């Protein structure tokens, strides 16, 4: 089995999708000849042609809006938005149009598209290149939201997203793009959207997270005493999300810490925490704890590690929750 980085796995999966389904079309800024600014689409235009891997004008609203049209006409567009911050100009098309088409038409007109977006901080990038807007889209009924953290999961979730009959926002944690390799099978497989992954089993406390912080959580866990047993859950899908897996785990451990890069207030951690409160109330030994970005603008990179939930702060959160 070949080993791949996150970038490599997504590239390989897009290649597979283009090769196996003539309706798949990739569009975005610099995705063609340049292979995307992160090289995620490297080589795909040369292999599949300019009609299928398309360099568009510099217009995010245009990219998503015209992808809606492509989808309505029966294609499976996979638009790329170059950075998380530039979802802004695309917001209207995504939330007010793509998300609503199925329900407005009572299922007659649908928008099967997969919007790929590099997400999150930690790579010393310029302004508006490090945001984590997943909660905004999870809070927008009609779109699905996923954020794999590993090459293996990225492949399975990307194929599921492309084949999904509804719009999916596929967030790619850029901090993980090249951070490690793992084995990824060459044949196609899907990971069901809405299924979490238990990364580590444990009995004392549940940590729920997604995206790049998975690795910060693992680092924090390494620093804990050996007799502390943590169950780490990588949500992978933000909407729909795997309530059952989380609830089952928290009923077992009685304690939970939710970790994400986005700001705390009205972040997706608030939803996770609220669900746990509703479904695990009698099992809880401590309030659900959140370790997140602060309720500020993501600072420019000199201070980004002060903002991000890095391992020491996560460890502190776990300790506080255990000590309660």
């Amino acid at each position, binding site marked *: 089995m070949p080993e791949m980085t996150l970038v490599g796995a997504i590239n390989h999966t897009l290649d597979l999708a283009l090769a196996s389904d003539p309706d798949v079309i990739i569009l975005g800024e610099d995705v063609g000849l340049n292979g995307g600014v992160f090289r995620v689409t490297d080589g795909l235009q040369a292999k599949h042609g300019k009609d299928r891997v398309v*360099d568009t004008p510099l217009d995010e609203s245009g990219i998503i809006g015209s992808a809606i049209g492509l989808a309505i006409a029966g294609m499976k567009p996979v638009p790329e938005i170059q950075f998380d911050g530039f979802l*802004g100009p695309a917001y209207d098309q995504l939330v007010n149009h793509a998300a609503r088409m199925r329900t407005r038409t009572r299922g007659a007109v649908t928008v099967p598209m997969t919007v790929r977006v590099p997400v999150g901080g930690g790579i010393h*990038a310029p302004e508006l290149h490090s945001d984590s807007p997943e909660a905004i889209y999870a809070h927008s009924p009609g779109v699905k939201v996923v954020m794999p953290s590993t090459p293996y999961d990225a492949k399975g979730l990307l194929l599921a997203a492309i084949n999904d009959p509804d719009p999916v926002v596929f967030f790619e944690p850029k901090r993980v793009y090249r951070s490690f390799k793992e084995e990824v099978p060459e044949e196609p497989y899907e990971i069901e959207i809405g299924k979490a992954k238990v990364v580590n089993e444990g009995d004392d406390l549940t940590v729920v997270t997604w995206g790049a912080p998975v690795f910060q959580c693992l680092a924090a866990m390494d620093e804990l005493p050996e007799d502390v047993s943590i169950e780490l859950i990588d949500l992978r899908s933000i909407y729909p999300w795997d309530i059952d897996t989380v609830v089952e785990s928290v009923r077992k451990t009685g304690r939970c810490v939710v970790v994400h890069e986005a700001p705390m207030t009205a972040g997706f951690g608030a939803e996770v925490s609220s669900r746990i409160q509703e479904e695990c109330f009698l099992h809880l030994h401590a*309030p659900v704890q*959140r370790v997140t970005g602060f309720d500020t603008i993501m600072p*420019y990179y000199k201070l980004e590690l002060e903002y991000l939930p890095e391992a020491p*702060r996560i460890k502190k959160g776990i300790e506080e929750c255990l000590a309660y």
Partner: protein
Amino acid sequence: MPHRTVYEAKIEHLQILDEDGKLDKKLAKDTLNDDQVIHLYEQMRICRELDEIAFKLQRSGRMGTYPQNKGQEANAVGSALAMKKGVDWLVPAYRENAALFMHGLPMHYVLVYWMGDERGSKIPEGVNITPLSVPIGTHMLHATGIAWATKVRKEKDKAVITYFGDGATSEGDFHGAMNFASTMQVPCIFYCQNNQWAISVPREQQMNSQTVAQKALAYDMPTLQIDGNDIFAVFKAVKDARKRAVEGGGPSFIEAVTYRLADHTTADDARRYRDPAEVEAWQAKDPLIRTRLYLESVGKWDDKKQTELEDRAKKIVGEVVKAAEGIEKPHPSDFFNFMYAKLPRDLAEQRDTMRTSSIGRHPEQAGLRPQTAESR
């Protein structure tokens, strides 16, 4: 007559100083005098030095991603001189550094900014410049708004110029800015630095329009294409547009044909998508080369002056780098302090406990907080 022409237009191109340094004297009348040319040449050269040092800082890990201005300096200096410092507003993208400096932004601010520090955008009092705009094509609406305000407030002799790239004209906000400015007839100059590329996308692929300038026709805006590597043409076009603006003639559009000699940013590798022969051809059109040739031809420049200038540029930029790197580290909680005029209580608490708490809070921690109605 069932068929008649209801609208006709043409786009003119203006060049005054050609790439060999030859000046069209007739067109150059009432533009720049030789002292001004020397001044602009020096500004361009100093800015080029900054650009090269910034590139090296990035390569040696002392600075983050940086977009070089190399090759486009004539646009910045020519336009800045035509605008009124301290009165007019500059609403930039990120490839017109020299214009910002000429209008009062201390040079080290630009480095501080690209070193990942918001204080590089803390524009000093009295400098009428908005911060660099990393999001493409969204800031021109702000220029329209500023110009609108000067009209509403009947401010005399005041105009706005906004800079943006060829790629930026694809964004919907660009058209919104143009339409608002035209409909409201505000004193705003839209200055497009058409450097032929938007990262890897060449202009011909960015738009099917033959020129960028013609986009302004849709908004019935006076529009012109100029040689953007020619400081005379740049100065004249902006000066004329400014005159029209302050005399109530509304907005204007300028497409400046120029070229990005460097990679898009230090994070880019242009060899992946563009022909080195193309770059080479444009190197000959470098605004610094032709301006120097002109000055030499009128006996105002020689090797000695050049050496002096280069030494001065090195010294200035050396000081600038020192100032940028010497700025004290921001306080770890700096990013909280400018979120609102008055920090909401919860946010102030996040700031004050960022080192001691995980953010998560227990009822007992919450109990430590004053829970009076007042503090809510």
